């Protein structure tokens, strides 16, 4: 069973792929979260009626398969002659995708803060910004963090799709090795194990936080 042609340098190749997966995830989640927080606050601030265009656009990102979004995004940047490398295209599309989900999470978090608390803050003479910064942000973060961790892991797993654009991330690296070595099962198992090892501990942390924070 372990009689394999897989060499150390091949394992290094897989790890490089894993690093690419992590890099794409890190960039997209960071950018997506910033956008998501902005959109979420805006949506809460302007009310549901004025937020319709924003809601609609974000909804599209949640209702169209990521694969289609990536291909479309890539075709768009190619038509517009932006000349983005696959990494940039992948990150831009994934960031918007993340932002679409993150907006919902942020909105949920903000609306979980009781209006009475916020009114109390404002009547103490806090400005809108102070209210957001010292009252809403800490409370909303507690509510939102577990879902946000879930979202991050989701994006990490979904980032496997960027292989379609020719980016050699973890799954694509495994496919390259399968092509050369013809040991699909072993290589795919290693690939799955790496995903699992990245995802599982963070998922557990999310579960732990949820449990701890929901009881008080």
């Amino acid at each position, binding site marked *: 069973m372990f009689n394999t042609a897989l060499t150390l340098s091949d394992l290094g190749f897989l790890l490089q792929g894993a690093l690419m997966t992590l890099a794409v995830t890190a960039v997209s989640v960071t950018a997506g979260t910033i956008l998501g927080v902005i959109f979420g606050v805006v949506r809460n601030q302007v009310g549901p009626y004025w937020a319709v265009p924003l809601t609609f656009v974000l909804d599209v990102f949640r209702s169209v398969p990521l694969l289609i979004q990536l291909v479309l995004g890539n075709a768009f940047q190619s038509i517009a002659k932006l000349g983005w490398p696959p990494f940039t295209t992948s990150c831009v599309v994934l960031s918007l995708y993340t932002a679409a989900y993150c907006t919902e999470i942020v909105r949920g978090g903000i609306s979980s803060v009781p209006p009475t608390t916020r009114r109390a803050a404002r009547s103490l003479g806090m400005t809108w910004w102070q209210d957001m910064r010292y009252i809403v942000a800490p409370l909303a973060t507690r509510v939102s963090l577990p879902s946000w961790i879930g979202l991050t892991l989701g994006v990490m797993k979904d980032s496997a799709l960027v292989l379609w654009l020719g980016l050699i991330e973890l799954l694509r690296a495994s496919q390259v090795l399968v092509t050369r070595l013809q040991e699909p099962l072993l290589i795919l198992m290693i690939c799955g194990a790496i995903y*699992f090892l990245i995802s599982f501990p963070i998922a557990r942390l999310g579960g732990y936080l949820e449990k701890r924070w929901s009881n008080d």
Partner: protein
Amino acid sequence: MFSYTFHWNQALKALPQMLDGALVTLQVALLSMVIGLALALALTACRLSGNRILGSFATAWVEIARNTPALFQIYMAHFGLGNFGIHLSPYTALLAGIAFNNAGYLAENFRGALKAIPDTQTRAGRSLGMTSVQAFRYIVLPQMLRIAFLPVTNQMVWAILMTSLGVTVGMNTDLAGITQELNARSFRTFEFFAIAAVIYYVIAKAVTLAARALAARMFRY
């Protein structure tokens, strides 16, 4: 300005073909949800059974389904199982991959829903002379399904989006498969995928609205 001119009329000619594909997409998604729900109930039962082997089997299933990419799971269902001489057609592999994924996520949703139902209710049921199965069937299950309804709807939308991954295992009858084939033939990527995106959006919206209408009818008290 752009060296690319859109050929929409060419692309729109393929619309009937793509709508046929959309039906297949919907079919796979629905089937995978039915199978996924059944499996998720079974996994939940395994976890509640108190049997250590069944319990850890269910936990392993749930954790693997939730911690590896869906694309990986589908690829594995086709090429991984193929290594053992188990040959699933692209359709079956896609269905199996999504059902596996659905089951994992739904089982986790059910677990969350169960926690929200107080133990005391079951005990009350038992003290009224119900068997434990009856108590589960008539007291816990209806509430669980009600609490889990929204996550189940979300999972259904996910299932629709996941069907697009079938192209990687040779699926050519669903919406993504047909779109990709049209694209490979003519290189008119943007037009075909834009149309596909619109169709996916419409399907996903229709399913969400239908689910909402259903919920309004079912959970009226």
